[in-house]
């Protein structure tokens, strides 16, 4: 029974390890063990050997426990084992040996800590101010006049310097394939460097419990080639064009009448500050804390009852009619 039980655990563990290794990144968009940039790579360079050392100790200790349980089982009630009360040399040995292993690990640890705390500098660096809100992300590019939400767009191969702060409670910014997490704290600014090797969309989400919809505070990092990134900036820095006729025009009017404008900025039309900037909403693939794909159907469901879709959402249920929703969506679809 003992042997069977231990073997079962062992095989589970091995299977788990195998699956961990074999899973492709397509299926695991937030896999922290699949670094896609130099910052995450530095962490992985430390994580992998530490896991290897831990695995050796794991096998050693579990092997000893298992061996002891099997080899020294009582076979007769008359057994009288030698009464060993201790052994100073051995105990000293298994005090010093782990200490030495940890000493080696600590050298590399401190080196990496210094490395990842280095601030990105130079003319090439892209600066972004990140603000955490319950429950969405605001990204402001101060040198480029762009403000967007939930999707952080960056160029590949260039360091991105993030300045993180929060508008309400503590959040934590975590794009696992690009960097470890860093807390986003009201009243403080934290600094983080980010870099992606290849163009692509990288998933992430808030990692510090921040209230009701913590689970719905997700994010995407979209890496472009430098040329595409410049194009993206040009598009997003421009003000929005306001439609004046048709459903979209009526939607634009509703956007003011229904109070949308008092919370949302549309550059050149409204200047609300509580909710995400919608100037180029259609440039994004996701909305509402990167919880929903941006499409007509999802927008419709969302506008019917935001707090019903994302618990606690500050955006209230405005009791819009289906007709009003259709017009608003028509307007939102012009925000390209």
């Amino acid at each position, binding site marked *: 029974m003992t042997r069977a039980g231990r073997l079962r655990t062992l095989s589970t563990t091995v299977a788990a390890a195998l699956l961990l290794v074999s899973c492709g990144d397509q299926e695991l968009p937030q*896999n922290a063990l699949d670094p896609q940039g130099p910052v995450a790579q530095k*962490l992985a360079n430390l994580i992998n050997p530490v896991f290897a050392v831990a695995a050796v100790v794991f096998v050693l200790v579990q092997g000893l*426990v298992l061996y002891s349980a099997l080899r020294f089982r009582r076979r007769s009630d008359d057994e009288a084992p030698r009464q060993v009360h*201790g052994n100073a040399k051995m*105990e000293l040995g298994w005090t010093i040996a782990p200490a030495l292993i940890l000493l080696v690990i600590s050298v590399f*640890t401190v080196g990496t800590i210094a490395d990842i705390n280095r601030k990105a500098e130079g003319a090439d660096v892209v600066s972004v101010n990140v603000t955490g809100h*319950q429950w969405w992300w605001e990204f402001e590019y101060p040198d480029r006049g762009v403000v967007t939400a939930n999707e952080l767009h960056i160029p590949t191969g260039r360091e991105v310097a993030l300045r993180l702060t929060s508008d309400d409670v503590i959040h934590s910014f975590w794009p696992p394939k690009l960097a470890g997490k860093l807390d986003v704290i009201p009243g403080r600014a934290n600094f983080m460097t980010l870099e992606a090797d290849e163009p692509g969309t990288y998933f992430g989400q808030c990692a510090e419990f921040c*209230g009701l919809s913590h689970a719905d505070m997700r994010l995407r990092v979209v890496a472009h080639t430098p040329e595409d990134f410049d194009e993206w900036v040009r598009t997003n820095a421009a003000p929005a064009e306001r439609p004046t006729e048709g459903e979209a025009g009526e939607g634009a009017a509703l956007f003011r009448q229904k109070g949308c404008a008092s919370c949302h900025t549309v550059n050149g039309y409204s200047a609300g500050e509580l909710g995400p900037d919608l100037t180029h909403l259609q440039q994004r693939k996701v909305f509402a804390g990167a919880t929903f794909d941006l499409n007509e159907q999802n927008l419709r469901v969302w506008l019917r009852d935001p707090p019903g879709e994302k618990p606690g959402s500050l955006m209230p249920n405005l009791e819009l009619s289906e007709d009003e929703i259709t017009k608003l969506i028509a307007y939102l679809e012009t925000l390209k």
Partner: protein
Amino acid sequence: MTTVLEPPSPEALTTAPADDTGLMRRPTEPQGVWSWITTVDHKRIGILYGVTAFIFFLAGGIEALLLRLQLAKPNGTVLGAAAYNEVFTMHGTTMVFLVVMPLSAAFFNFMMPLQIGARDVAFPRLNAFSYWAFLFGGLFLYSSFLLGGAPDGGWFGYAPNTSIVFSPGHGIDFWVFGLQILGIASTVSAVNFIVTMLNMRAPGMTLMRMPIFSWMTLISSFLILFAMPVITVALFLLAFDRNFGANFFNPAAGGDPVLWQHLFWIFGHPEVYILILPAMGMVSEVLPVFSRKPLFGYPVMVFSGIAIGFMGWGVWVHHMFSVGLGPVAVSAFSLSTMFIAVPTGVKIFNWIATTWKGSLKLSTPMLFAMGFVAMFTIGGLSGVTHAVAPHDRQQTDTYYVVAHFHYVLFGGALFGIMAGIYYWWPKIFGTMLNERLGKLNFWTWFLGFNMAFGPMHILGLQGMPRRIYTYDDSLGLNVWNMVSTVGAFIIAFSVSVFMFNIWHSHKRNRVQAPGDPWDARTLEWSISSPPPHYNFAEIPTVHALDEFWHRKYTEDDDGRPVRVAGSPGSEGDDAAHDDHGDDDHGHGIHMPSPSYFPLVAAFGLPVMGYGMVYGRSSGQSYVVVVLGALILLGGLFAWAMEPSAEPEEEGQEVIEPATDDQPALVTAGGEEPAPAPAPEESGS
């Protein structure tokens, strides 16, 4: 004694509390409900702690099952976001404060005085007060479910999410004052245990002859004594923020939410060792007994426990590696955290060495103890990976951490406590638990545990944050979440096997436990099972570590144990177990008398708590705080006026205690290092 079934009204107490002989007669029942309510016997209080904590364990377990049901599949709908946040907050708070701590306290209470050869703890009525405060604190916390919503800020209650701006309901208030009450209970009992262990050990029991479980009790009690005030201060600051508009944690007014994190974890990390050290002590008792060998390196085990206790104060920032405290602080705490693994590792190797070349009887307690060593090692190794701060930047606040601390607190603390339960059950209740059911209990526990929490390592590294009520299908986390949920239900099955075992062993197939069923080593096994209410007819004189073993065995030239002729438990001997505990006549041992007042005093605490909770929304409710304070003070006053022990019959000589609450007859045992003479009055 039906005349005292009605406790006095609080008003009556506060107006005329002093005259205990006139107002209310001392409770004297030896049996029945009132004897339990008024008991000051450390063994009964231990059982009360154990039963209460087990009921809270079932509550916390049901919460865990709800969480796992919600997360079994992506976009789950079993609980909404609001309910999920309440349930995970209460699950953590319950398991830490209402389950593992009081389960340890149950064993501190029942076993520690027996292990050190005492008749009770130093302050028996204070001990009862601790229990009632714990019970009321737990009920107070749980009453929030019925009173508008449970706390939902996590067991860590990070500011500013717990401020009234972001948590306007009363849930957080219940959490704040519930923890304050529980903190009082823990601190008071820590003082009690420390005084007991330092002053009331049997003659000859030097500190380095004290059983290892009692040692871990001592270290744990010191940690409680120093850690609880920190959380108390933090909670008061939070209460001032919420109730009186202070701004300690409000960044908009110059306060600092990170201050809360420092205070919480300066408490919170020692708290981890408060939870694990008692279990380590239990395992250190079980392994030698079932290996038929002494604990390998007893002094090193003691000192590594002390080292862990000390170093536990210098590692709290490893809970905050993602806060952005700067490279110097992070490096320093990274190193200190790594090196706390050294004394922990020493313990693991010493446990293995204890079993090495022993004669291992794999009974249920031993299975749980060896399971502890194996599972706790995994928790320790993942702990070292947290110490590597850059490593931690990826895994903190993910399910990897959830896996880690469940391997420490479930694979560690609860495995150890289960070992302790199966080991000491015969001593506590005089009944053997069924071995076959016990083994089924262990193997389902072991399997369910590894299925529930093993996959969480993978989930965390694959990007699943903690405390999320839902996750999307696209993250590829479905399989392991389902496995984990199935594991949780296997644990639930295992717990029901355990409960069935208790019922079966007591009602169906009862086997009377002998005094020493396991051929054990420490003094609690030298008396009958269950122990008589006065514990020891004669206070034992201690000559060695593992005193009881050395009364039974001596070592031959080869270092192998040889039975001492005529020793307890050897053939033809029944001398050890002849003092059955049903009579307190004929010994003249005078034990502290039962009392109502610990209960009355403790009852004042939740009343004050409700006053504070509702005072925030309506100022008049603060009157209730005053009422609660009067109940507390009235109870304490009446308690102070009441002698610790009533004369039982005329003409009997009663030694009045030198200090309040000291059991009169067991005060002389504690001097060290020289054995003091046994108290002459005890055995006459």
